[in-house]
């Protein structure tokens, strides 16, 4: 497939965005009353539900850690989320890998030492998959954790970036994700700029790495601004009277 289909001569992408433009992000915080924290996050056509339970007592003695909380993370994709119906929502290799990656990411961001002997359950499900699933999941989990009142160092914001005709393209949709370019997913703590999640799919030349990474970090700053406004609005709305 020729490259011009991903980036038109006018510099616009297949869905009309500019290279560094994010998709429309909207979020419904605390939609699930049963959970301790929950968020429904939509980034373009990628829709994700994240729920957080805890901190609560460990279910198995072996999970208890005397100095910090145990974090359990389960990533799943609804059977109807992709164009081809999936057999099982969870349990395949890629889901397990993502679960583990998300777990490590949030272990770095949550102040786990405030909750010794406890366990925090994070469940995230893709309802509709249109690219950047992992990045959107990270954003959704962040919102759910904030809703649950679990102490974190900072927001964790993530975006995916690719390179087309030497132009970095941010927040990929399904079409762009499947394109010829390499994909880099970066999750950062936007205030300090620390990287807590980094994944590169297919080969990315080392000379391009810095450029792509920088664009990803910039994208994260913008995600952070949006999420922060949403949280502040939510706080003002639901303050005690």
């Amino acid at each position, binding site marked *: 497939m020729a490259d011009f289909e991903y980036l038109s001569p006018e510099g616009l992408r297949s869905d009309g965005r500019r290279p560094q433009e994010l998709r429309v992000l909207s979020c419904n915080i605390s939609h699930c009353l049963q959970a301790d924290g929950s968020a429904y996050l939509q980034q373009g056509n990628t829709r994700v539900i994240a729920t957080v339970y805890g901190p609560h007592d460990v279910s198995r003695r072996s999970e208890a850690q005397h100095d910090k909380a145990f974090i359990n993370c389960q990533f799943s994709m609804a059977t109807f989320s992709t164009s081809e119906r999936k057999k099982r929502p969870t349990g395949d290799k890629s889901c397990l890998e993502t679960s583990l990656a998300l777990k490590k990411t949030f272990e770095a961001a949550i102040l786990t030492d405030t909750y010794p002997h406890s366990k925090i359950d994070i469940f995230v499900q893709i309802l509709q998959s249109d690219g950047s699933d992992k990045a959107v999941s990270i954003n959704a989990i962040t919102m759910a954790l904030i809703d649950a009142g679990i*102490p974190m160092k900072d927001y964790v914001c993530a975006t995916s970036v690719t390179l087309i005709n030497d132009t970095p393209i941010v927040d990929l949709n399904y079409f762009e994700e499947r394109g010829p370019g390499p994909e880099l997913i970066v999750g950062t703590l936007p205030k300090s700029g620390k990287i807590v999640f980094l994944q590169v799919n297919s080969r990315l030349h080392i000379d391009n790495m810095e450029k792509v990474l920088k664009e990803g970090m910039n994208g994260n700053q913008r995600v952070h601004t949006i999420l922060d406004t949403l949280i502040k609005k939510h*706080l003002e709305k639901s303050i*005690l009277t």
Partner: protein
Amino acid sequence: MALKGEPHYVAPGDVITANLGFMRGHGTYESDGKLLASVAGVVERVNRLLCVHPLKSKYNGEIGDVVVGRIIEVQQKRWKVETSSRLDSVLNLSSINLPGGVLRRRSAEDEVMIRDYLKEGDLISAEVQQVNSDGSLSLHTRSLKYGKLTEGTLVTVSPSLVKRCKNHFHNLLCGASLILGNNGYIWISPIILDDHQQEQMRFQLPSTPGSSSVKTVTHVATIEERETIARLRNCILALAQSRILLYDTTVQYAYDASLKYEVKE
């Protein structure tokens, strides 16, 4: 800076102050000589202590709190109680009053009988006796006020919605009694007799050692009582949804306001 008047909203990672003269409280952490928020909420300042209170969080027990909880496990000499706290709470066999107010003698016999007093799934009201070093709570029911709950409805709300009051046991004018647990568990039941009357009941109905509960069921709720309870439950849920602090006055006002609506099937 935490100013008076306007609430100061912060989110994780926001700098609360770069002034080192403040002590860091809950919901904050220190980094590079700055005080940062770790949860989203409102900054509260007490003298030199800065805290951030999140909108929702797990119940943080304090000594003397009234809680409502559910027995989830029976162990050798104690029960594990679920109180929506970070860790399961503990009720020791030595910190309950036996049926009929009999003083307990330490014996192997009643260790065997432990399941007869309280079993899995039972609801109890209790007081926080101690906060253990790992943050779990030890409860006690050594008063006639506390003990097993029978006949009533449990409503769960966020713990932050229950106002800390002198008294958490209320007999409302509408003919129902309310236990506002500090942990956000609220128990609504038909009027519980006061201590004096209860004492009399105990003499009339001496519980046999084998009786299955700490408080015996002496009363079956009538249809009117059930309607009142259902109405109160809905009132509490409505108050919780509009995030209004719960204490006897607010509940009573909500109840009065609801009277113009009918109870429907």
